[in-house]
Every structure is written in structure tokens, then in C-alpha cells.
């Protein structure tokens, strides 16, 4: 309930800070590749950061989802990020983003083969990443079946966005877990 009332008031108060936030993010973006990114963005240069730059960050080397995130948020789905993509990624995860948008992007992250359904193979990939390949294929397959069984409302053996949202609504702390505050 709260997120509905939150955006109007916070948007007003955060108007000045969001600019500085954008600047901070820009500097961060530029720090990733100072040689590629110009300081002057007035004429909208077509600059993209290749995925290798992001994927090779030392902090990220253990993160199972690094490539997927870059792919989902990049415009062409290839993991190369423009500044806009970079800012988009952050705004999706900010508090002001509506829950449906968050759910949509979360769904996209799970949907590895981009067919707009989370099917069993997508889930198997997710579980594999989460468990760092420690489960046997049988175990993973069992888990995935159960996951689909739990959330699959229209019973087509895969999770559509509607299924996903329905499940997200039932989990009350989804909102509190899917955000970043800087």
C-alpha cells in the first residue's frame, strides 16, 4: 500500500537530489572507462561500455547474475551499456519506480531465453546460478517443477508475466527487497 502514496511526495522533495544523483552516476559511469566516455554529453555521443568492462569488475566476479543484468538493462540486449541504460538500471531499482515496473524487470532477468515466459529451462539456469552448480540435475529439476507448480496459475507449465506478478503480490516484502538506495 505504501508505495502508492510514496512517489508523489518524494518526487517533489527529491527533485534537486536526483540531479546530483544523476551526476554521481555519470561520474561512476565515466570512472569505469575514462578513456571511452567523454565529459561532455551535450551532443549525445554514442558511447557504449562493452560488457567486458562491467563483467570484469573485481567486485562482480562472484556474482552469478552480472551478465544477465547487463543484458537485460542494455538496450540491444547484448550487455553493452550506454549511459541511458546505466541510469535506467538505477531508476528501475529506485524507490520511486512502481512495483509493476520492478516486477517486469525482475521477470526479464529470469527470462533467459527472452521468450516472455519463464519456462523450466530458465528456472533451471537461475537455480544453477544460485546454488553454484552444487545441486544435481535431478534435484534442480525437482525444485523447478515445484516452483512452477506453486506459481503457475494458468497452468501452462511456464510462468507468464501475469503469473509472476500474481506471485509477487502475494509476497509482501518484495518491494522492500527489490530496491537500492544510494
Amino acid at each position, binding site marked *: 500500500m505504501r508505495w502508492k502514496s510514496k512517489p508523489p511526495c518524494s518526487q517533489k522533495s527529491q527533485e534537486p537530489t536526483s540531479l546530483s544523483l544523476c551526476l554521481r552516476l555519470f561520474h561512476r559511469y565515466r570512472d569505469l572507462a575514462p578513456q571511452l566516455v567523454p565529459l561532455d554529453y551535450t551532443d549525445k555521443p554514442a558511447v557504449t561500455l562493452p560488457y567486458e568492462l562491467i563483467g570484469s569488475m573485481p567486485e562482480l566476479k562472484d556474482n552469478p547474475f552480472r551478465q544477465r543484468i547487463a543484458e537485460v538493462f542494455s538496450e540491444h540486449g547484448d550487455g553493452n551499456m550506454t549511459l541511458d541504460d546505466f541510469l535506467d538500471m538505477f531508476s528501475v*531499482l529506485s524507490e520511486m519506480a512502481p512495483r509493476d515496473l520492478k516486477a517486469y524487470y525482475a521477470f526479464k532477468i529470469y527470462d533467459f531465453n527472452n521468450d516472455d515466459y519463464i519456462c523450466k529451462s530458465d528456472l533451471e539456469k537461475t537455480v544453477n546460478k544460485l546454488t553454484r552448480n552444487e545441486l544435481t540435475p535431478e534435484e534442480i529439476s525437482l525444485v523447478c517443477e515445484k516452483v512452477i507448480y506453486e*506459481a503457475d496459475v494458468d497452468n501452462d507449465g511456464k510462468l507468464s508475466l501475469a503469473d509472476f506478478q500474481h506471485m509477487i503480490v502475494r509476497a509482501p516484502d518484495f518491494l*522492500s527487497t527489490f530496491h*537500492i*538506495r544510494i
Partner: protein
Amino acid sequence: MLCPCACLADALIFLFLLVFHLSRKVTSVVPESCLLILLGLGLGGIVLAVAKKAEYQLEPNMFFLFLLPPIVLDSGYFMPSRLFFDNIGAILTYAVVGTLWNSFATGTALWGLHRAGLMDPGVEAGLMDFLLFGSLISAVDPVAVLAVFEEVHVNETLFIIVFGESLLNDAVTVVLYKVFNSFVELGPAHIHATDYVKGVASFFLVSLGGTAVGLLFAFLLALITRFTKRVRIIEPLFVFLLAYVAYLAAEMVSLSAILAVTFCGICCKKYVEANISQKSRTTVKYTMKTLASSSETIIFMFLGISAVDTSKWTWDTALVLGTLFFILLFRAVGVVLQTYVLNRFRLIPLDRIDQVVMSYGGLRGAVAFALVILLDREKVKAKDYFVATTIVVVFFTVIVQGLTIKPLVTWLKVKRSDHHKPTLNEELHEHAFDHILAAVEDIVGHHGYHYWRDKWEQFDKKYLSQLLMRKSAYRLRDEIWDVYYKLNIRDAISFVDQGGHVHSAAKLALPSMPSRTSMSESSVTNLLRESGSGACLDLQVIDTVRSRRDKEDAAMHHVLRGSLYKPRRRYKASYSRHFISPDKQERQDKEIFRQNMKRRLETFKSTKHNVCSSKSKARLKEKGRKKKNISLTKETPNGKTHRNVPWQDAAPVLVMVSSEEEESDSSETEKEDDEGIVFVARATDEVLQGKTTPGSLDVCPSPCIIPPSPTLAEKELPWKGDQADLAVYVSSETTKIVPVDMQKAWNQSISSLESIASPPGIESGPQHRRFACPVLEEQPQSASQVMPEQSSCFQFPSHISKSGRSQSDSSPEGPEQQELKPLMATEEQGRVPPSAEPRWLMFNRASHL
């Protein structure tokens, strides 16, 4: 004098407890802590009247050394750690800043009241005395908060904030109490500026030191439990002992003992739970809860009893009323101010209603009372006044606020905690989101909460878990798999609870999916479509192509096992303090559980894939049976059979009836295929002779043992009657043999047997006598572990053990493995090539429907 009194008191206590627990109406309105205090008051009155002087009271030493630690350990050990650390900022703020504010404000305000001359002149106290009193009266008490909030069920965040505050403010209380106590002893004239600095420094020392002691002992405890494989029975002892030693150690060097035990409990839990055996886990859980609730009972009781002792206290209306007013006021003010600041940093702000509950939930309790009793009458002149005031405050907060907080919460519509079932989805997404957020934080270069949590988890995974967990436990303890396992166990247990019938299982699988119950029409078509592919699902036949001699041996074996009643395995009748032999009853239960679990899995799969509600399924079965009768009696196809004609075109589906091991196999195999197969089973003679017998299906949904009255089919077809006779024979024979506990499972096996098809095919007559074999074979399943070939299907499949699950630890952990088996067995699937199909009873799918 003392002894009979104590006995009387004890008897009364338990009598009243019984009454409390029985009368739900009373306890639904009045919290148990209130009732206990009132009961204590009554008992104290009786004792006072009989003995003319108060015999008992809450001794501070007893309280701090014996009564408090179990409660704190319990709350620390079962603290929802993620929730706790998610809200650690708010908790720490309220605990430190809030408590400081409360004690200073209350103390100063009371001193002002005293200076204004509103108090009795008998209250000889200076600013330091009032600050000392303020420090002990302002701390929210964990025992009282736990007792009241557990019955209120506010949402988890609210609860963890109030409760966490009450636990963590101990350090502040201890320091303030000690500092002011020494200041009072020194006298205001001798206090130097350095003393204040020392006070502040000692706060950090006490709180951080207490936490460090707790962490140290948590580490030790985890390390010790890693090596207790051979002494399972003392595992729980280690948990209690080391936690208590942590408490004593912290107390000894005057660090915050409550913090030590709390953090010991929070931190060791993950590793200890992974290391110790299931039984030890249960023991720890129940012992801890029992100890904690006993301590709680005793504490509240003694609070009531000690209040009667009038010699200890002196009444002053202004002091009492002033204190009550100030603690309520300053608590509310403090909460509002701090929440205002905190909400700037919180994603989900604490709204006004939360603040009201937090202010109102600041209950005082036995800690304050014990501290005030500990005061030295020589140094603190106004001790008697303080004691009286503390008692009144404690009683007021526990009784009045405890009584009213429930209506208040209802009236304000505070978000309650919802006990929805944990789902695998939540677990999965929680993990995934953690990683995703950590990744995004890394990309944008922000070292936020997720960043640190991710770093901690990596550290934990790389070093701590490796060091503190058994190899097997470390491997087994994958959280997602864990949740899956738990969910399955829970389903199975509820399934057993419901009576273990196949049909109840069908119902069970469905209520979580209400939308599915209405799809009868589409499900039928679905079913028809899916039934297009039939597959043989049995593992054993395909895997083992036995020689004739082997087969004969096996048959002989089965016959022997079927006809001989095996005594239960006997255990050495030796006594050992450190080992418990598994109970016979327990093994039986396990057996029943396992069997039911298998059945449940079967039906779960079939209902899941067939997507028909239990109702529509039953109807389908009804139809199927009718249709079967029709075909059996070889009537000319009427309208009904016409309708069923397309069904008969569907490819055949195997329905086999088998003894236990095949059932487990079948439950596995069902995973891959999409059509719902109700039973996959096999008659033993099939193994022997490898012949195919075409047949039709007789679905008997009720697990009745009594043979059905002979139908037309039975009269006409000789084997029908034959089978019925056998069923009678078996049931009368085995109900004698099978123990009462097994009956349910037995009935089920019978019912599954009755769904054996009696084929109208060519090779009919003599072979069907052999249906007796599976019946007999079911008998010894309670002792099935003895048989190597049977137990093999319960083991972890070899490909799983190959894939890295360390087996080294598992051999002495027989019971644990057994518990896993019903689940692990499900992994043996998908190995079945459809080539074996013709060897099996083949039915038209439609007849089954």
C-alpha cells in the same frame, strides 16, 4: 514450615496453569503474564497470611544467574536473523539513543518533581539517585515484551524492532546502572570529568565486549558441534552449556551478558543446526522453549509474590504517579523523535500507528525489579520508595498495558503478521534478488547494504562455513534444496494427518490452486491429449535382466518373506548414557510415513499433470468404472460407450500394481512424463516370467478390505472371483500380522492392489492366481531395510552420490538418511526407455478413466 508451603505453592501453580491453558476465553483476552502476576499476588497473600512474613521473593542473583539466561538464549537462538539484521539500524537506535534519552529524561524530571517539593520529604535522593532510578526503570524488558507481544501477533518488523530493542538495551542499562551506582556511592562531590569519560568508554567496552564474548563462544560452539558425530546425545548439552558459559563469562568480567548470549544464539544457529543431528535439533528446540517458558512463568509468579512483601517498600503517591507519567511520556516522545529521524533512511517508514504500538509496547519487567532490589540501602537512602515505584510500574505496564495492547492493536488495525505458507518461489526470488541487487550496487559503485551482505555471504561461504560445518552438512545444506525438502515433508505430514487416503491426497494437492478446480472440461481434453503417449515407468525390470535362476530365487524369496512373519529387529539390550537406539515405534512410523509419502507423490504428480480436481477425477473414475463394466460384460456398445469411443483410440497407458520398491520407482518415473498415471505397479510374477498380460482396470477408490459383492463381471470371469477370494484371504491374514500402526498403510496397499486389472485377454486363467504374490510381498515392508535389493531404491541414487555429495559422513547417520529417502527416491527417474512397454499390463487409457 517452608517445605509444605513450597509444595502447596507449586501444586497451586500447576493447577492454575492448567486452568489457564484450559480456559481459552480467559487467555484470549488476558495475557498469561498478567494472570501469572495476579496468581503470584494471590499466592504471596496466602503465604503471608500463613507464615506472617513473606517467605519468597525474586532474588536478583537467582534471576540473573538462572532465570534470565534461558529466556535470552531462546530469543537469540530463534531470532529471525535476517529480519533482525535488516532492521539493525532502527533497533540499535532505539536501544541506545532511546534508552539513554529515557533514563536521563525520567531521572531529571523526577528530580525536578522532587525539587518542586511535590514528593514526600522522606524521599532522600539527589540528582544522582534519580538518574540511577531512571536508568533502571527506563529499560524495556525483554521478558515482558516477549510475553505480551507473542500473543498479540503484530507484524514481524514491528515485533523485531521492539523486541530487539529490549534485548540490546541491556548494555546501556548495565552501564548506566553501574556508572550511576558508583556515582551515588562516591557522592556528587567526588565526581570528576574523567569519570564521565570513563562512563562513556565503559559503554563501548561493555556492549562491544559482550558482543565479542558472544561471538567467540558461538564460534567455539559451532566448531565443537562439528566434531560430535560419535556423541550425538550430548550435542544439545554443548549448545546449552556453551551458551551458558558465554553468559557467565560475560557476567564475570562485567560485560553485557545478555548481549553475549543473544549474539551467541544468533550467530551459532546456522552452523549448529547444520552440524547436529535431526534429533538433537528437536531436543535443542524443545528444551530451549521449555526452559524459557518455565523461567518466564517463575519470573512473573515471583514478581507477584515479592510484591506482597510490604516491609520492603514505602509508598509515595507523587513519586509513583510521576514515574508512571514520565516513562509513558518520554517513551512516546523518544519514539516519535527517533522514528522521525529513522524514517529518512528507511525504505518502508514506520507510520504513526507503528509508533503508537512501539510507545505503548515499552513494557518494564523483572530486570528493573531485580536491579532495584540490588540497590544498597546504605548508599541509596530512598531505596524503599524506589522499590515500591518499580513494582507499581512493572505491574502497571504488564497488567494494564498488556491487557489493553491487544484491543489497541485491533482497534488501530495494525498490520498483523500473516502466517502464509513459505513457498519455494519466495526463497528462490529472495536469493536471486539479493544477488541482483548486490550486482547492481557493485556496478554503480555504491557500497550499500546489499554490497556488504553479499560480501559477508561470500566470506561465510568461502571460509566460515568450510571451517565450522561438517563436510556432509555443508554440502547438504543448500537453502533452496532445503526449502524444497521441508515443503515436501510438510506436505507429506499433512497428508498422513489427513488419513493417508489417495483421495485426500488429491484434495490436498489442490487447495492452494483454487483456480484449478473449475477446469473440468478443459482438463478432460487435456487428459485425452496427454494420454497419447504411454510409457513404461518401471526401473527395475529394465535395469536388471535376470537369469532364470535369479528369478526363481527372487520368487522364492518373495514367497518366503511373504508368508513368514518377521520379528522386528532386535537391538542390543544394553544401556548407555550416550546412545539411544532407534525406537521400534519410530521405525514403524517412518515406514508408514515413507509409504504414504510415495503414494502422495504419485497422486501429486498425477493430479498435477492431469489438472483435474479431485471431484472431477472421481467423476471420471466413476465413468471409467461404468465403462469398464460395460466392456467386461461384453455388452453391445450403447450410447455411453459410443461416447467413449474416441477414448479407446488413445494410446494405451500402463497401469501396474506392484510391491513397495516398484512403487517408489514409479513415483519417480512419473516426473518426466506428462500423463497422469494413478498407479504404476507390477505383479511379481512378471519378473519371474516376463509375460505380458493385457488387461483392463478395476479402480476401487476406497481402501476397503472387504471384497466387493460379486458383480456380473465376477460371475462371468473366473479370475475376478479368484482375486476377490485372495483379497479376503490376505486381509484376514495380514490384519493379524500387521501392527496397528501399520494398518493404515496396509489398507492403502490393499486398495492399490484392488486396482489391479483382471484382464479379459487370452492368457487369463491360471496366471491371475499370482496376484497373490504382490499382496504377500507387501507384508514385510516394515522390515524392508534388511533386504539389499529393496533398500537399494531408498538410497541416494548412485549418480547423485557420484556427483559430489560426500558419503563419507553419511554411514553412521542412518536415521537421517532414512528420513531423506522418500524424497531422494524421487530422483530415480527418467531412466526408463519406452522399449519395455510391451512387457507390461496394457490398458486402454479410457477404461481407467
